[in-house]
């Protein structure tokens, strides 16, 4: 395979020169390209916000001419190396999953593989995602030892009070204190992260998530206008406030006889909803759809009038943007970064309590009955302009450009930073660990020197096999059009 690609590559090079004049029509390549490695425990086939963020961002970066690879852990039989659309290369590493799709961390056992991949793919920037992902933190740690530039994106909010958050926050402090740049998805998230990890706010940027507006288009004909349908699409877990939902459903169903609920998603809290349904005999009015594929979400959304989000904590809620893009009136809890996401005329914000949410929903229903809601097309055309992945990629690229100009802290300074920044006990422990990791890296370099590692054949990036094909195809279509 690889060679065949190589062959194509040569062929393309020979044909590029005459038609260089067309190049300005292509997505403008920035002056410098990076070899970016995205690391996270969460990636497809797992479903969620982080997963689609990584995928879409990577696709847009590839379009802008960067080389992007993704490292995640193996999902059941999905092990090894796979290529996705446009030559996005994904390493599914055989690491043991510990809890909630997150790998166990020992800080060292993943190092040989990660180092091998970083070397063979000639990675220049390591971009880790999600603070829940142990693998992301491991990769940051190793990348810093290997003197690579690091970027971290935080996708979630966290408390400060309970034991688990105290521990996680300490870990985050250690992990982020010498990271080059941090990206948050909303200003609330930025505040939260800066506080938790005691960071300098200057190295924290805010780049929101985005949705693909072409995937989420309204379709009012699918609605059943004789009834009012409320749609909930989320994983059925505690964080998403399913207990609140189980309080809302019976109250409102008693009040409005033509009210229906559609709940999409799967999780441990599903049983709560099933019990509510059985206790109040609501089988015909509450539909539980179970796990949804990403492409089915839109078909579920367009069946409803009102979208309800009951999250208890949320950094940036992609679900409400998707719903608004489908033209639904959104009712949501006022937590985390949600107030920043949509303008006030598109969303009804409530406190995270059953009563307040019921009031919000009643308000939405009365709007709906009086016909004072905006029509789905208008909502869609408004939302369409807010968040696009191209924009996200552009802004992320700027972060990369900035990071590429910075220096990675050398070992001595790194130790100083760890000890001064993370408290005497933790700092010393992690300083010791980073010294051990440095020695381990030395040992690995002695065992398999860098020159023995075959450089991988690029799939994407300036010399990538896929890029050539992609550009050639574009050029052909352009030529045929003109």
């Amino acid at each position, binding site marked *: 395979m*690889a060679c065949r690609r190589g062959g194509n590559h040569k062929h393309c090079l020979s044909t590029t020169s005459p038609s260089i004049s067309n190049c300005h029509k292509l997505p403008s390549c920035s002056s410098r390209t990076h070899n970016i490695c995205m690391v996270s425990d969460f990636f497809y086939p797992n479903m969620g916000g982080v997963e689609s963020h990584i995928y879409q961002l990577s696709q847009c970066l590839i379009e802008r001419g960067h080389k992007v690879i993704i490292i995640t852990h193996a999902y059941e039989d999905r092990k090894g*190396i796979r290529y996705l659309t446009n030559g996005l290369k994904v*390493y599914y590493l055989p690491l043991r999953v510990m809890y909630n799709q997150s790998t166990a961390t020992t800080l060292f056992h993943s190092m040989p593989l990660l180092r091998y*991949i970083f070397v063979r793919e000639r990675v220049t920037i390591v971009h880790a995602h999600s603070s829940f992902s142990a693998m992301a933190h491991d990769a940051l740690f190793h990348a810093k030892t290997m003197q690579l530039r690091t970027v971290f994106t935080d996708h979630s909010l966290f408390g400060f009070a309970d034991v688990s958050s105290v521990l996680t926050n300490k870990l985050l402090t250690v992990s982020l204190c010498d990271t080059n740049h941090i990206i948050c998805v909303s200003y609330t998230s930025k505040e939260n992260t800066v506080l938790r990890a005691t960071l300098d706010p200057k190295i924290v940027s805010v780049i929101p998530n985005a949705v693909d507006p072409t995937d989420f288009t309204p379709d009012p004909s699918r609605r059943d206008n004789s009834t009012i349908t409320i749609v909930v699409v989320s994983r059925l877990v505690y964080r998403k406030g399913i207990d609140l939902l189980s309080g809302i459903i019976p109250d409102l169903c008693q009040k409005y006889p033509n009210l229906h609920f559609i709940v999409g998603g799967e999780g441990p809290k599903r049983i709560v909803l099933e019990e509510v349904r059985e206790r109040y005999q609501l089988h015909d009015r509450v539909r539980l759809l179970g796990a949804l594929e990403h492409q089915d979400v839109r078909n579920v959304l367009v069946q409803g009038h009102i979208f309800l989000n009951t999250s208890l904590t949320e950094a940036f809620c992609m679900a409400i943007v998707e719903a608004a893009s489908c033209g639904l009136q959104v009712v949501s809890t006022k937590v985390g970064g949600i107030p920043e996401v949509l303008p006030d005329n598109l969303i009804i914000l409530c406190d995270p309590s059953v009563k307040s949410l019921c009031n919000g929903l009643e308000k939405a229903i009365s709007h709906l009955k009086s016909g004072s809601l905006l029509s789905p097309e208008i909502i869609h055309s408004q939302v369409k302009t807010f968040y696009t992945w191209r924009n996200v990629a552009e802004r992320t690229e700027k972060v990369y450009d900035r990071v590429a100009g910075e220096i990675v802290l050398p070992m001595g300074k790194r130790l100083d930073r760890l000890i001064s920044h993370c408290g005497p006990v933790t700092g010393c422990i992690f300083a010791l660990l980073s010294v051990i990791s440095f020695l381990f890296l030395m040992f690995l370099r002695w065992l*398999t020197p860098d020159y023995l590692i*075959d450089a991988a054949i690029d799939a994407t990036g300036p010399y990538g096999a896929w890029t050539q094909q992609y550009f050639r195809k574009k050029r052909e279509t352009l030529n045929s059009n003109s």
Partner: protein
Amino acid sequence: MADEEGYLAVSGERITLQRRHHSASCREFLVRCPRLQLRSLSAVTCSVWLVAYGLFVLCQNSVVLSAAIFVTLIGLLVYLHFVKIDQESLLIVGSLGIQMTSSYASGKESTTFIEMNKVKDVVINEAIYMQKVIYYLCILLQDPVEPHVVSEVVPLFQSSKPRLDCLVEVYKSCQEILEQNKKS
């Protein structure tokens, strides 16, 4: 007819690739691994015996010593006969098929022959192996019922694991023969 070149294996060992062109549609590739080093052999033997001697000093039982001798002998036999592969060869005959042979250090040979109508393609693939990500050459077998489905992947040069530059050489020659075969 036959030319020989030195390459490196993934582990850094020196291997030699020998190419023999028997005819236009028949080629043979031999990958020769380094032979068993006297140095490593004596090191292992000495360490086993030293450990045995240590045990003997501790428990004053001479059975330990004789057991150690047996263990080294049997271990060496097993290693030479079942583990250590000296040479791997790949024979492609355009009209017949592909034959893989691995010769063990003891002289034992194990051969597998795949008929040409079962071979879908020969490709270079990537895999995660131990704590490494390596390239390897493999044969894709066709599913007998659905011709577009790959039913099995047979890796080549499994024990020597040559690096990419060596694999590309072999790959190109294989593709030439496969192309010829497809044309006719």
